[in-house]
């Protein structure tokens, strides 16, 4: 009897172990459930309002109706360096995802993106792209691995209400960096809010310092054949940091928080606590969807460029890509989704109208100023198609839309961009939090550090 009981316990214990192991090893990714090709696509940023997600799901349903053999699951997504790395390494990226222009080349070189050349050719617009824009998603031999879905230029976002309260004319945004400084001071003195603030964390400090440096005529890297030289210690960067230092320590017009990343500065700006910020021209979408900005507060203008041929506007954008680990059927389905969700609207009137109508019905922003991923005529045509659905205060953004095409657009630095930005975060933080910070030393140290990172390859 005793031995039976013992055997029974032993057997049940063994079953528990077997069960545990089975639970650990069960797999859930069946690419062809019920004869359909299943793909996962990125949807919107976490924290977007429900109506935005509803609009997205409507678009998923429209796509599935047009492609009955594809089953689409959506996943919230916000590109950040750390989460993207973890998803990439862990193999948990969805079938279709987006990355910034700056990462396209390196991901392609490392064989981490699927080849979409044939698919994009099939859609008929492979040759229509703006060549400079497409480059960031192309391999050296011209294969298309990332489809540019949106391009932005850095703009000056300002709060019209704070402008008015400070006695400034909201219809006269600053046109020079000296004006930015005097306006910021006036806003800070008269409203008690930060006149101007700048991102400093999570690589955004470097990104914005680079934007300001470009606008003042400097460049952070120069390319000679295969060799990339860090040129962080340049007159433009020196002037950029000096201007920031003066606004921070002489004028005290930058508020009291100097640790901002993309999300937190947008939050503060939308809440009406900052007069002016630099940021990608596309942030209104997030300000509306995530931060509930009062549209009447919002104004967008071009970044003032210093006189001289070398001053340029930093631009960037988003690439849609397909997971290299997806099956060929999934890759084809993913490419179709990219065409449907991101691209077709620019080229086909019915797609443009359907997209705009779906968004407008859920009260999502339609008609924000964009930079062309194809050519300007195509973008103008698209803007014409969606005109009846435009629901954003375009008039308050006209200073950007009117001025942007007169500015020289310059791409982001290409070598180890995000790592360089991380080094520059520290530089900007030091200038804004330490009154005695020595700009020359900071820049030369950063220059050497970045050069070492680039040389390490």
């Amino acid at each position, binding site marked *: 009897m005793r031995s039976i009981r013992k055997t029974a316990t032993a057997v049940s*214990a*063994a079953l528990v172990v077997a069960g*545990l192991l089975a639970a650990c090893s069960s797999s859930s990714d069946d690419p062809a459930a019920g004869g359909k090709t299943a793909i996962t696509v990125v949807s919107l940023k976490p924290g977007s309002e429900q109506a935005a997600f509803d609009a997205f799901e409507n678009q998923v349903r429209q796509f599935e109706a047009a492609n009955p053999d594809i089953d689409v699951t959506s996943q919230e997504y916000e590109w950040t360096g*750390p989460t993207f790395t973890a998803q990439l390494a862990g193999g948990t990226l969805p079938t279709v995802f987006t990355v910034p222009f700056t*990462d396209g080349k390196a991901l392609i070189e490392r064989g981490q993106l699927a080849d979409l050349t044939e698919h994009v050719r099939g859609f008929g617009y492979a040759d229509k792209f703006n060549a400079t824009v497409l480059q960031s998603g192309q391999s050296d031999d011209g294969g298309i691995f990332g489809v540019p879905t949106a391009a932005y230029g850095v703009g000056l976002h300002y709060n019209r209400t704070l402008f008015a309260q400070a006695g400034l004319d909201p219809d006269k945004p600053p046109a020079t960096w000296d004006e930015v400084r005097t306006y910021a001071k006036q806003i800070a003195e008269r409203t008690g809010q930060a006149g101007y603030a700048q991102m400093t964390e999570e690589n955004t400090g470097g990104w914005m310092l680079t934007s300001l440096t470009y606008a003042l005529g400097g460049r952070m890297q120069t390319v000679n054949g295969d060799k990339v030289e860090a040129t962080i210690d340049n007159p433009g960067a020196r002037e950029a940091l000096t201007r920031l230092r003066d606004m921070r320590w002489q004028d005290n017009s930058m508020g*009291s928080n100097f640790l901002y990343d993309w999300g937190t500065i947008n939050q503060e700006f939308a809440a009406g606590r900052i007069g002016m910020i630099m940021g990608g021209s596309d942030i209104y979408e997030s300000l509306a969807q995530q931060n509930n900005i009062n549209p009447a507060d919002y104004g967008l203008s071009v970044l003032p460029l210093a006189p001289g041929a070398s001053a340029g506007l930093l631009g960037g954008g988003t690439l849609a890509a397909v997971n290299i680990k997806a099956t060929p059927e999934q890759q084809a389905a993913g490419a179709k989704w990219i065409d449907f969700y991101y691209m077709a609207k620019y080229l086909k009137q019915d797609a443009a109208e359907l997209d705009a109508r779906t968004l407008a019905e859920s009260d999502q922003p339609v008609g924000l100023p964009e930079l062309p991923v194809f050519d300007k005529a195509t973008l103008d045509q698209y803007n014409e198609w969606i005109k009846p659905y435009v629901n954003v205060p375009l008039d308050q953004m006209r200073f950007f839309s009117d001025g942007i095409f007169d500015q020289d657009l310059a791409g982001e630095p290409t070598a180890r961009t*995000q790592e360089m930005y*991380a080094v520059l975060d520290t530089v900007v933080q030091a200038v804004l*939090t*330490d009154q005695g910070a020595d700009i020359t030393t900071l820049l030369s140290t950063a220059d050497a550090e970045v050069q070492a990172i680039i040389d390490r390859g």
Partner: protein
Amino acid sequence: MRTWVRRGGLSTLVFLLPLLVIFGVFSWLPIVRAALMSVQQTNLVTAPEFVGLENFESVLGDPLFWTAVQNTGLFALIALVFGYPLPLVLAVLMSEVRRFRGLFSAIAYLPVVVPPVVAVLMWKFFYDARPDGVFNTILGWVGLGPYQWLQSADTALPSLVLEATWAAAGGTVIIYLAALLGVPAELYDAADVDGASIWRKIWHVTLPQLRGVLLVTLILQIIGTSQVFLEPFLFTGGGPANSTLSVLLLIYNYAFGSSLGGDYGAATALSLMLAVFLAALSAVYFWLTRSWSTS
């Protein structure tokens, strides 16, 4: 073999197996893999490459490594000087109180129950560097400040220690309170008969009776503060200008700082170095204090 089975060896093993498997898969396997990765160059996507001690060399050659070590050491030191005695003082005071002792211990323990992220967000609000920020307003009443708190390299690290102490003290208070209950009342009675003051009673009775617990909480605190991550990560991201970059945050940055696949080799190499350092420190500590312990 037969006797081993008959004596229950087999069923012991079978019962132990689930635990061994879970512990092995989720604890030991990652540790072994991390040790292996510390001598490899890998992005976890393509095949890893053996690089010997290169990762260790690159970590030791990184100027940020020394910044991180310095910051972590300073954090541990400030936490030790201010954070270590605080729970003991609180526990002794609370044990002296007869009424509402339960209420006091609940209040002391409350910060431990608050989810850390919520606590940090709350303190971020307190630390607002504007003159009308919460702490600056309160200190302004007595003519102090306004202070920069997290917005200056000089005050950011101590600000993190303050929050970390607030968040962790409750747990230690409870441990001390439990230990204080174990101190025999006769000892205090005897001290009373000898006419000892309250300070002499604490010094000659309470502290010696608690020394076993005190020794353990001390080393636990040192290990805990050496692994500080949450506060710098959530409060400052290591800033301003790397003034709150801790060793663990640096490990995180190595692994996830670049969006193009991090330097997992360097991250695991530094993790291993930290683990070895803490193990050695604990061993030395227990060896040095072996004669003081109660057992």
